[in-house]
Structure formats: structure tokens, C-alpha cells
């Protein structure tokens, strides 16, 4: 019933619902894997303190005032670009949130280049914006995040391996630092998202995976900075990339480790106007 939009190369096919403009499926054509994936942007309403605790969300603290984030938009205005070297979908979710879903010729990952900001706060609500991937994967409340790009740590919701956790913050208490990658797996397939900078991340539902990309808060969190996390200069608009890999569990590590290295130590681009002179006089 849905008319769909497809971008593909010889390794990957991404399918979007042309009605909503949102991603709805990723296929790994090489390994014949197919995973329904819907991806969108949401925002947590930042807490300013409540009857349970006076703790507000701030530079040191992430504390949403309700557990369910609000969608930036349930649909995106889209335009499609297809050339020999790249196929991409430009998504506009709102005046302050857009994304390009990009597939280069010969690449085995989907590139999501997101642009978020300036986050509007005229409604007097601080906002903590996430990109969330939802799939039907049975992940048994587990997900994996890296530790400074090296060791991969298993995370389980409402659990700490070294002490008995009394979970008081069902969302923030399940957020972990993501330096280079976060992934979920059902034992057969693995969905890995690589980041181009450190972000907070979690998996709060089975098959779901989220990364916090930007925040704009209105009050201080009482931990010493004494000012709200509220960029007003060019830093209030942020652009970054998430690289999405769908692969079998068996070869996922080889893919994300090589790709993460290439992301962190990307080639340096230097331009020159030609017109050079020999370095050595002879």
C-alpha cells in the first residue's frame, strides 16, 4: 500500500516510505539480509526538577522530565538526488532539523548526515535531541557501546555488573558514553551505528537504538557551572554523521573496526591552486 523510494548500490539498499519520507528498511544485498528500520529525530523535555528530585538537566546531568521523547516530526519533506557516484535523500523534518541519507557507489554503509539547531526554546522547554533507530530485532534488553574506540562493553538495561543498581532514572540511568560506535544484535544480524564524535547513547526498548546529537537547556544543574547549557553563537547549530552498518554478526566486527579507524583517521584534504615551484633548486 506504501509507495516507496529506494536508494541503492551493489551492497546496500535503503527503502523509504514516500508518504512519510522516513527510512523504513535497510538491506544488505551482499549477505541477503533485510531489516525493517525506521529512523527519526525526537527530543526529551529537559527536567527543571520535580517532586521526586530537584535535580535539573544541565551540562553535567541528563535528566528528562518524562521518559517518552517527543518526535521532531512524524514525517519529512524529501528530495532525491541520484547520480553515478551517489544516491541521496534530503530530508527536512523542521526548520531546525534536517538530514541527508546518502549511499556512495561501492560503499557498504549508509551515511546519515544530520543537521540540528538552533533548537527552539520559546516554549520555555529545554530540549535534548536524539536520533533513534527502531527495528523488530529481539535484543533482550542488551546493547553494546565502545570504550574510547577500543573495548566493546555489553550494556543491560537497569543493570550494573559491579553493584546492585536501584534504578531511579529509567532513561538517563540507561544512557552510556558512545565514543565511536553503538550496536544491537539478535544473534544473527547486527545493526551498528558509528559516530563522528562522542555522544550519549542507549537502547531503551528491544530493537531500538538512540544517540543524543544536540541539547539546549534553560536552567543550570547546580553542579558548579552556574549557567545553563545554552549555546547562542554558531555552536547552536551542529552537523554530524552517523554511519549505519547492517551485517551478519560474524563479520560485523571487521566492518565496524575498519570503518571506525577510517572515520577517526580520515584522509586530510589539502587544496592548492597549482602553479608550483620545484622544492629543490637542482
Amino acid at each position, binding site marked *: 500500500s506504501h509507495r516507496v523510494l529506494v536508494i541503492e548500490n551493489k551492497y546496500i539498499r535503503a527503502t523509504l516510505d514516500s508518504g512519510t519520507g522516513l527510512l523504513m528498511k535497510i538491506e544488505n544485498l551482499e549477505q541477503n539480509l533485510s531489516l525493517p528500520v525506521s529512523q527519526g529525530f525526537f527530543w526529551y523535555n529537559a527536567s527543571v526538577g520535580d517532586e521526586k528530585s530537584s535535580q535539573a538537566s544541565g551540562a553535567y546531568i541528563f535528566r528528562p522530565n518524562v521518559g517518552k521523547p517527543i518526535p521532531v516530526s512524524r514525517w519529512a519533506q524529501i*528530495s532525491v538526488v541520484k*547520480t553515478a557516484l551517489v544516491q541521496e535523500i*534530503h530530508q527536512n523534518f523542521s526548520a531546525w532539523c534536517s538530514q541527508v541519507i546518502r549511499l556512495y557507489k561501492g560503499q557498504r554503509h549508509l551515511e546519515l548526515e544530520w543537521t540540528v539547531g538552533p533548537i527552539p526554546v520559546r516554549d520555555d522547554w529545554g530540549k535534548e535531541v536524539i536520533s533513534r533507530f527502531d527495528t523488530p530485532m529481539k535484543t533482550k534488553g542488551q546493547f553494546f557501546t565502545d570504550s574510547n574506540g577500543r573495548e566493546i562493553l555489553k550494556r543491560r538495561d537497569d543493570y550494573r555488573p559491579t553493584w546492585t543498581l536501584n534504578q531511579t532514572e529509567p532513561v538517563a540511568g540507561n544512557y552510556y558514553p558512545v565514543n565511536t560506535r553503538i550496536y544491537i544484535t539478535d544473534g544473527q544480524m547486527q545493526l551498528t551505528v558509528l559516530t563522528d564524535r562522542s555522544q550519549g547513547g542507549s537502547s531503551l526498548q528491544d530493537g531500538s537504538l538512540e544517540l543524543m546529537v544536540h541539547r539546549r537547556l534553560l536552567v543550570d544543574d547546580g553542579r558548579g557551572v552556574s549557567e545553563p547549557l545554552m549555546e547562542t553563537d554558531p555552536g547552536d547549530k551542529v552537523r554530524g554523521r552517523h554511519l549505519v552498518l547492517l551485517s551478519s554478526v560474524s563479520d560485523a566486527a571487521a566492518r565496524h573496526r575498519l570503518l571506525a579507524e577510517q572515520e577517526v583517521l580520515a584522509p586530510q584534504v589539502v*587544496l592548492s591552486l597549482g602553479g*608550483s615551484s620545484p*622544492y629543490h633548486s637542482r
Partner: protein
Amino acid sequence: SGDSAPLKEAMAVLQHHDAVSGTARQNVVNDYARQLAAGWGPCEVLVSNALARLSHYKQNFSFCRELNISICPVSQTSERFQVTLYNPLGRKVDQMVRLPVDEGNFIVKDPHDQNISSNVVMVPSSYSEAYQWELLFPASVPALGFSTYSVTKMSDHNHQAHNLLSRPRKHK
């Protein structure tokens, strides 16, 4: 002469937890950014000297610090320029190069002076009022090495000629 010490010192200062996690006051954050930016300049001279020595040619290299937001004066205003990619990894890397350009068609040549395929694509309308176009071409860079590609903008005249040449001849 170039110098990497200022950037090293800035990075040393930015090991502070406030810099790593962003828990600093705005003026402190602005100063962190200022120190980093001040460190880039002497490093760019250092990289230019290294590339000149390795390529045996002194060139007027320029670095586009805002490439991620589609701003690069050299590629946006020049009819002809060179793109050098340095790969710090110990293995060959294939990378799609994206550079903001003015509208038009371009010929891209690889380090062996062979034409390679390239596209000019439209950037999302929300990205920039001023610039709408980006040049795309696939680059391959050796391990711990560099590759230099040359880009030439085709004038309308030689664009038609190029088209005619590239049009498949009718077999008699």
C-alpha cells in the same frame, strides 16, 4: 616554518574534564575553541612544508576548515585547482571526495593524469543560500601516503566539445 607545539599544548589543556565533556562555562568553551584554532595555523604550515618536501614541489596549499558545512573558497571560486589527500592509516583507503563548487562541469584527473568520473550534485536547500553545488569524485590514497588530483572547470565551449567527444559514435 611550521610548528605543532601550539596544537599539542591546546590538546593538552583540553584533556580537562570540562573540555572533554562540555561542562564548562560559555566563555571557557569559547577559549578552548580559540586555543584549538590558534594551534591549527602553525600546523597547516607544517603540513604544507611536509607535502612540499614529499612532492618535491612548493605550492600555495590551503586548508578548508569548514568543509563539513560546504564552505571552501578555493574550490568555490577557482577554475582550476589541485586536491591532495594525505592518508594517516597504514592501509590504502578509498574515499569519496566532496567539495563545494560553483555551478558547472569539471574534469578530474587522477595522479596518473587519467580522467576519472565525477559528479556535481545539489546540496540540500537547507544547507546554504549561497552555494548549491558540490563536486564528487572517488579518490584512492596509499597507506601513510598521499594522492594529488587535479580539477579543471570546463568552460561552456569545451563542455560541448567534451560532450560531443564522449557521445558514442554511431557504428557505420
